[in-house]
């Protein structure tokens, strides 16, 4: 956690110490609660902790799994950060991710051509799918004034319904096979369409999607900090009136940020599809959209800080999966990981809240 807090941007010393203490305290509380729960259900806390460690950090294979889990989280977080900088809150990544994966699956299954071309096409299709899904609330907002938070959120539920529909219709995406023996999922993508893996099991091996994500991170950092686009985006986020005066068109720039955020979430879905899962399943989003938002929150909307945070959350997902396979009940795994997620999120949320309170406090110094 130390590495994380020192990476957080522009922290002055006393504030950094304060933040560190806050993290230590909230993790202590979370671990105590988790321990109590595990002990109550008759399991051993030390075994549980060891299983979490085994699943996320022990050996190359586990580390690779953690990185695989972190990859889409980071991508979702990057999109959320771009949006937040523009002062817009897209919280519909869970749906945008699912729609991205669906679009990626359609391209991956039906586009003709050599494998690598289909693979690239599938990823681009995924980005486009996510962007389109985010585009709907963008249009609703800039055309009719529908709140973005509500618009993006509700589209998540529409996405879930749509995903379930396409995999239960044989003339759409449902897998081939005997009637009655088909699952609600798509066919497997062809071997050549899948993102190649780097490294060999059981040593460290990761999907090559991770390099796409790292490149995206570098690009976002550079653009936000040094481009005129990033400058205008920040201006829009901090003060829309001043931005408009200076010629920033909120529809273009803010709507664009929303589309970018959707594209990133969609791409995350595409990478999950062709990097690990291999086929479209309506449950494949598995909270990655939501947790990506938390990554952005804990990283305080800073793309560089999002990297270690995404790794931490990814490790937690990998460790939680392993823990479930050791016989600890699934619900207990969920509760334990949720407690740890809350411990990671609390200090950032607390800081946001106190910032808000400070800003709302009336200024009485004026004589």
């Amino acid at each position, binding site marked *: 956690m130390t590495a994380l807090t020192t990476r957080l941007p522009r922290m002055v010393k006393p504030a950094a110490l304060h933040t560190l203490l806050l993290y230590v305290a909230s993790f202590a509380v979370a671990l105590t609660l988790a321990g109590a729960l595990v002990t109550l259900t008759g399991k051993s806390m030390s075994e549980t902790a060891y299983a979490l460690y085994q699943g996320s950090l022990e050996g190359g294979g586990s580390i690779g799994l953690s990185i695989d889990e972190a990859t889409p989280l980071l991508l979702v977080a990057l999109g959320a950060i771009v949006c937040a900088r523009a002062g817009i809150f897209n919280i519909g990544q869970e749906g945008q991710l699912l729609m991205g994966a669906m679009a990626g699956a359609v391209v991956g299954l039906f586009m003709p051509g050599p494998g690598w071309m289909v693979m690239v096409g599938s990823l681009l299709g995924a980005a486009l799918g996510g962007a389109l899904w985010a585009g709907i609330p963008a249009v609703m907002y800039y055309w009719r004034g529908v709140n973005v938070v509500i618009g993006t959120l509700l589209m998540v539920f529409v996405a879930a319904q749509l995903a379930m529909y396409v995999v239960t219709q044989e003339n759409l995406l449902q897998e081939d096979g005997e009637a009655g023996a088909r699952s609600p999922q798509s066919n497997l993508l062809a071997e050549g369409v899948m993102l190649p893996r780097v490294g060999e099991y059981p040593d460290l091996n990761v999907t090559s999607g991770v390099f796409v994500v790292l490149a995206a991170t570098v690009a976002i950092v550079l653009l936000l900090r*040094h*481009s*005129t*686009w990033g*400058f*205008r985006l*920040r*201006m829009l986020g*901090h*003060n829309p*009136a*001043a*931005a*408009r*005066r*200076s*010629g*920033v*068109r*909120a529809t273009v720039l803010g709507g664009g940020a929303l589309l970018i955020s959707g594209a990133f979430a969609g791409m995350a879905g595409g990478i999950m599809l062709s990097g690990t899962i291999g086929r479209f399943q309506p449950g494949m989003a598995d909270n990655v959209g939501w947790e990506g938002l938390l990554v952005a929150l804990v990283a305080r909307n800073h793309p560089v800080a999002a990297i270690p945070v995404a790794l931490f959350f990814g490790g937690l997902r990998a460790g939680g999966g392993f823990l479930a396979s050791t016989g600890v009940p699934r619900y207990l795994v969920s509760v334990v990981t949720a407690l740890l997620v809350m411990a990671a999120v609390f200090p950032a949320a607390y800081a946001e809240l106190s910032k808000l309170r400070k800003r709302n406090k009336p200024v*009485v*110094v*004026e*004589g």
Partner: protein
Amino acid sequence: MSTRPSTDNGDTATAGTAATAAPAPAVELTGITKRFGTVVACDDVRLSVQRGEIHGLLGQNGAGKSTLMKILTGLVRPDSGQIMIDGGEVSISDPLVAAGLGISMVHQHFSLIGRMRVWENVTLGERGHVDRASARRLVTEVGDRYGLAVDPDRAVEDLTTGERQRVELIKCLRRDPDLLILDEPTSVLTLKESHELFSVLRRVTKEENKTVILISHKLDEILHATDQVTIMRSGAVVARRRTADTDVRELAREMVGREVSRLTAGSAVGALDALVEDIGAAKEAKEEDEEREVRLRVTDAHATGRDRRPLLRGLSLTVHAGEILGLAGVEGNGQAALGDLLSSLLELDKGTVEVCGKAVRAGRPGAMHAAGVGVVPEDRHVSGCVLDMSLAENLAMADLGEVARGSFLSPRRLRSRAERLISEFDIAAPGPDIQMRRLSGGNQQKVVLARELAADPKVLVVAQPTRGLDVGAIEYMTERIQKAAESGIAVLLISTELEEILTLAHRIAVIHRGAIVGEMTRAEVDVERLGMMMGGQAA
């Protein structure tokens, strides 16, 4: 008299110490100190107000006047010091205690609900059954008693600002307070309304032996309306005078802490007379105005706000190169909308804006700026700057071309441009990377002005340029605005301070209810006539 705690009969208890002939003062504050962090708002303040007098509390913005009165009304707790009411020590822990002691305050910004009727506003906060008939009678009675005529059945939003203030006064006076505090009451009034207000205050003190504290930074009204005056500077009391024994120059000197020129005294501290006398001097200055090129022409502008309220109703004006057009008017008559229009923030329902003869599309982001209109807006925090970005970034804003290479910013150019403007405009800042939020109000204003002037504007709009600034900053702004006009820029000065307009403007237009109701050159200024136009009367 109203019911209140036992302080009334405290007189006998304190008689031993205050055994002199004079009765105990109605209010006596001793050793009041209040800090906000490192800022000392009140430093060992002593204030003594006799019963039945109008006591002026004079000082610049930030001198500590408002804080002192907030202590007296229970809104702020002092760090140390003693409060005596009629000779008895009291502890005013919250506004209810203050009300119980008979202390009542009319704040600078009204707390009225526009949609509700006058009598409803007056009874607001009352518990139990609201009796419409008796409430209406109350409004009429209090109104008759003090000469505050207002129809109890009208909705507050339909009233003029002067009438609204009467409602505020009725709200206070109906509780029969012993001490009435008014915070900058004339800032929203026309001259005539101000004079009416002062005669009401005179009646309240003379006939009912109530006590009034009048907070102001305008010398004229302090001289006009008060019996005693206490002058504050940077949180401390620097002088106490009998109003009859002092004059404008002395008051100005004490308030500012040094000698000020007559013109600065005019715009900074509100000495109107000095300005009107200067008319002769101004007369020969600008005679050839008519031939100059028209830089800004607004024709028949109509606009409505988000709540469908009309903001502009057929406003037309022109500003020529090299002239300063002063737009006078009581606050809330469309000045903000005009400022927004020229900042590309407002769309027009009807009408046109032309800059240098070319039509500019209203409301299109950045269009006004691109056409050459620089704006120092009324509230710099709203559209003038971005508080969370750096000083250097705030100096760039719309003019990214100068600091960018292609679509990327050059940190070196951003920095060198900032350093140049910081020294050229005398901005006090530790460096170009400091967050805008951490600069003082005066320096934030300089940053906005520097950026707008750096873009070589054809037209410069300055709205309430000196509001909330100290005298040094006011002198600076005044000088810069004059220089801008001398260099040929057409300047539109929007201000509710008549003094500021008389100091700077070559030509004066009066705005009322979203339209220009009259115009005159600086040489033909007649304060009475201006005042009537500002109040909406044909003149």
